[in-house]
């Protein structure tokens, strides 16, 4: 066929320049492309495949290592389990006993004063005609309530003197930081003077006085 012969040999020409028919036989020409595009595509594909393979192998090896370590750990656990159980049981016993000890220690250290000694000292310090009707112990201190026999002037003076004597008493000053007469009132029925003395404990626990914690 006339007109198609030229076109078949060089299929690249659809736009034909004037006076430039091309008679080249493309099929007989050598491939001059130095590096083919497919080389790069294949290269990239191979690179990706190799990278994935290396990554997979690495992860597999890491997994195998983990499995081995896990197995070894299991063996060690199995070997140590009886001793571990014993230790756990002993520890439970220990914690139980420890609780008792801690409760005791808390009991012993929670109270900042030894009541028996406190009462003895209180009694010893009590001036004549002074009666203690109530001792209220709190975490912050002690509130003494009582009556003083005597006239109003005498009773109030006695109350003040009593408070001063408590302050000067080493047994009390060691434990209480502040001793103050907080209330004083005359009882109209009995005619006696009611008083209230607040003894505030010191903030840091003081070591008990000698002989008090026996």
């Amino acid at each position, binding site marked *: 066929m006339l007109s198609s012969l030229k076109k078949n040999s060089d299929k690249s020409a659809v736009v034909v320049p004037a006076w*430039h028919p091309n*008679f080249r036989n493309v099929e007989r020409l050598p491939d001059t492309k130095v590096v083919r595009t497919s080389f790069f595509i294949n290269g990239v594909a191979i690179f990706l495949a190799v990278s994935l393979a290396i990554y997979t192998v690495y992860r597999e090896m890491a997994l195998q290592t983990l499995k081995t370590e896990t197995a070894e750990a299991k063996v060690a656990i199995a070997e140590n389990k009886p001793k571990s159980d014993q230790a756990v049981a002993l520890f439970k016993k220990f914690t139980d006993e420890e609780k008792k000890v801690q409760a005791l220690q808390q009991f012993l250290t929670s109270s900042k004063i030894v009541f028996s000694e406190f009462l003895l000292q209180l009694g010893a310090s009590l001036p004549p005609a002074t009666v203690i009707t109530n001792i209220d112990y709190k975490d912050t201190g002690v509130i003494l309530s009582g009556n003083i026999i005597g006239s109003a002037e005498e009773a109030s003076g006695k109350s003040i003197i009593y408070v001063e004597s408590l302050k000067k008493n080493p047994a009390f000053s060691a434990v209480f930081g502040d001793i103050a007469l907080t209330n004083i009132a005359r009882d109209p029925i009995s005619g006696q003077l009611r008083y209230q003395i607040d003894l505030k404990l010191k903030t840091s626990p003081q070591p008990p006085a000698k002989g008090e914690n026996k």
Partner: protein
Amino acid sequence: MFFSANLKNFFVDFGEHALLLARTSKPNPPFVVEEIIECAPGDEAALAEAIKRLQSSKSPSGYLHAVCGINSARRVARKIVFEVKRLKESGYLNEATSQQLRIEPDQYTLALLNPGTGLDYDLAKATQKEAFICGLPISDINLSQDNLLASGVYPERIELSTVASLGAMVDYLAYAKIKTPVLVLEIEAESTNSYIVTASGVETSRPIQQGLESMIPVVQKELGLKDEDSARKLFFSNTFDFTGMGSTLIKKLVKELQSSIGFYEVQTGQSIGQVACTMLPSKLSWLEGSIAADLGVSVLKADVAGWLQSRQITLGDSITASAQDVRRLGLFGLMVQYNNHAVVPEKKQ
């Protein structure tokens, strides 16, 4: 490799008497023709040297990638007439080609061009009854292509030098505003292809069975030489002034040409103004003047540089004025890009 910009372009025109290689500054116009090297055809060493000189660094493929113009003794480049109504008939075109050109179309690679524009002849529209057919045998193409590759030249395009020359001539005549037709002659060894060309295109074409070889017996006879070989050597050597016997040598050729010219002038009313011989070897350039004198016309003196400039092609300083003649129209024709190209629809099988 990816980022190197190979800006140079190369053109190679394989003529019968000379091999022309050119290097341009860029692939497409505007560019400068930096260098033109001429070699004798068949001289492999000279060709290799020329390629090495043109191409300072080898391309990755090892070839000189060039647009090539070739010639073949069996090439066809002629006007053909056909019946437009029958063009759509299957096999008609081959039949017309075979009858008018006396070739086997199946053995050829052919192109059908519009003789005025040089564009592909549109068979679908088929408005003109004349077309310009060009081509060469498939075996010649393959042989030429193989020879090119063997010489280290990778053909980016393979074109016919004749077509490139004719296209260049048509364009030049339009540029120079030459209104009179020009007789273009390709005088080869055994035959001569004659074309009458105007700015409107190729008007006529005719092969004449008179070539340079037909002048040898005349030389032998005129000079009383012992044999044709001696006459041939003398004839092509340019050591003897043949201008005196020029008319005798070209008598038969001129007779044929006068017949063609006369027919054309009667048909068109136009007289040939000038003659141009595009294929003469440099040593036989005197033949052009003799032919022009006998035909009563002048030799075409082409302002090749000016024409190329109009096509955004500048000749480098190293290219001498003597290199700017019509014998190089084939080479320059390969370079010029004519702006009147169009998209051609796919041909039907």
